[in-house]
């Protein structure tokens, strides 16, 4: 129990273990994400692929976590589960005190809409819509009225310094700008977690730094950020690094010990 654990957005190993082990019980609201024995298997033409083999993970509000792992480690599957795009075969997944692993399609859609902000490697903006309209989309599905939507979308674009590009289409924006539009879109509905999947995978190193700074700022203002990446130097921006290997958590440590190991 070093004093640094009292820092914003850092949970201790002991606290996490306590939350994870209390199977079946509703975790405290403060724990945004709790997974208990999360399993996901795929049937690939008769062959069962066990992508996740029982993942226990707890993430507290305000944490900035990177999830790493080589390809085939199950990190994409894990991200899909965390992002409520997929449901597990076994295990519990609690998101903001809700047991979302039992949710059906429409409830999952609502959770994706309200609780999760996605940032993708390929940006995934609608090509024919303006930046503003792209940012508005989650609010459209949340049922927010047109005037309020515009205002909130503009606010989100201002936060990523793109207010002057609101009427531009994605193909009129640079890669970094597109990713910032995507971040604005992810944040516009004030989600519990910001889920980024290789957010810098399609960007050059200068732009990557720029995007990482945006994440940094968000994390320091209290936004929970979960970032999936396979690049250690990108993962090193997070305060906590979880490494997956063969469908299990191989390590879960503070950034300092992670960077020390890598010699960064």
């Amino acid at each position, binding site marked *: 129990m070093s004093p640094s654990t009292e820092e914003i957005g850092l949970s201790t190993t002991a606290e996490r273990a306590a939350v994870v082990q209390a199977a079946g019980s509703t975790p405290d609201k403060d724990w945004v994400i709790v997974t208990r024995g999360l399993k996901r298997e795929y049937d690939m033409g008769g062959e069962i692929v066990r992508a996740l083999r029982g993942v226990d993970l707890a993430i507290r509000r305000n944490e900035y976590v990177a999830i790493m792992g080589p390809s085939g480690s199950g990190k994409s599957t894990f991200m*899909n589960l965390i992002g409520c*795009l997929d449901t597990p075969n076994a295990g519990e997944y609690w998101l903001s005190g809700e047991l979302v692993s039992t949710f059906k399609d*429409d409830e999952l859609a609502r959770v994706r*809409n*309200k609780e999760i902000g996605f940032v993708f490697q390929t940006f995934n903006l609608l090509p024919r819509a303006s930046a503003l309209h792209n940012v508005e989309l*989650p609010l459209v599905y949340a049922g927010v009225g047109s005037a309020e939507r515009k205002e909130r979308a503009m606010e989100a674009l201002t936060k990523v310094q793109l207010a002057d590009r609101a009427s531009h289409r994605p193909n009129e924006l640079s890669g970094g700008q597109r990713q910032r539009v995507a971040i604005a879109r992810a944040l516009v509905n004030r989600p519990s977690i910001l889920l980024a999947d290789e957010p810098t995978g399609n960007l050059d190193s200068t732009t990557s730094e720029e995007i990482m700074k945006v994440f940094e700022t968000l994390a320091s203002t209290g936004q929970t950020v979960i970032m999936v990446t396979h690049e250690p130097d990108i993962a090193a921006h997070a305060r906590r690094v979880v490494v997956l290997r063969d469908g299990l958590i191989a390590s879960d440590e503070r950034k300092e010990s992670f960077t020390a190991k890598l010699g960064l």
Partner: protein
Amino acid sequence: MPFFESVALALNTIRVQKLKSFFTLLGVMIGVMFLIAVVSIVQGMSNYVENDFAAKIIGVNTFTFRRRPNFNPNTTDDQWREFQRRPRIYAADAELVRSVQPVGNKSAIVNQTFLYASTQYARPRQVQAIATEASYFDIKKLVVTSGRAFSSQEVSAGAKVIVIGTDIVDNLFGELDPLGREVRIGGMPYTVIGILEKQGSVFGFSLDRQAIVPYTTPVSRLIQPRGDLQSMIVQGPSREVMQDGIENAREVMRGVRHLAPGKVDNFALETEDSALEFFDGLKKQMIVFGTALPAIGLVVGAMVIMNIMLVAVAERTREIGIRKALGARRRDILSQFLIEASTLSVLGAAIGIALGLLAAKIVSMTTPLPAAVAPWSIGMALILGAGVGIVAGVYPASRAARLDPIAALRQE
């Protein structure tokens, strides 16, 4: 997503792909266009037949006593042979029918056919020669604008006088005043005593080519060489009195012809209803054939829309994935594509309606066919358009709604 926003989104999608959307719409457009045009023309004809034709050609509250029916579609060979075997109608029969008519019924013997009329001033023209009695003018509400109609005395005396329509005046007399001049009908000389008011035409058939003479003059012999009568028209003051007249006529004619009960009449008593019935049949046929083709157009249109929507779903799989990741529920995606398909086809229907109205207008201006727009047909076309879109959109939209977001997002 709110309905109007979905429509706006759909319109935007259509606007972005103008040419593709146009070809998608073509089937529905053409289908609706022909539907509107056909319905308008049929409606126009039926209005015309009901309002003008029946009164002008046949007369209000009239029946015609004749050897065989005039309006008789689909006559079989057997029927035709039966008609030929029927006894002819002579003056005595006409007098008998006339004698049993209720008070107030007017009647006129009518023999008519097309004959050539000629004057010394112009080449001969074909005219509608009507050999009749003085009461004919009254029954048909014919107005003589200059000169006069012939009297019953002239009819009994067999005076060779004639009342002609304006077309005949124009064609045979040019600038001359026809009154008092001679015109030959089928070679027989007549003196013009009156000119009829201009009446216009029915289905391109001019009513101003009538040449009316007493039935006691030689033209009758040209029309009915055997000396029998073609028909007698009877008009009652009301429909009921006319019906009484028909029944009396039937009774007395069956009597003189010794028809046993159960045997069919061997003469015809025809009202305007027979004509209207004939036109009703015609109208039904026209509606059936006239709408069968557009219906095929609409089916083809629906298939085109379904195809294009399937392509759109495939093309926009990633968009669907993005929308789902951002919280779109199945029904949001379903309604988005359904609304897109129906917006597309309603747009097609709207263009089709405009083109159909235009086509009806052109047809009524360039041909004798009248056209009247039936308001229900526009409403029906729009509903049909939306229906086609929804039917065509259901399958593609449900495919879009069922897409797995992960797979959809992964697609390039």
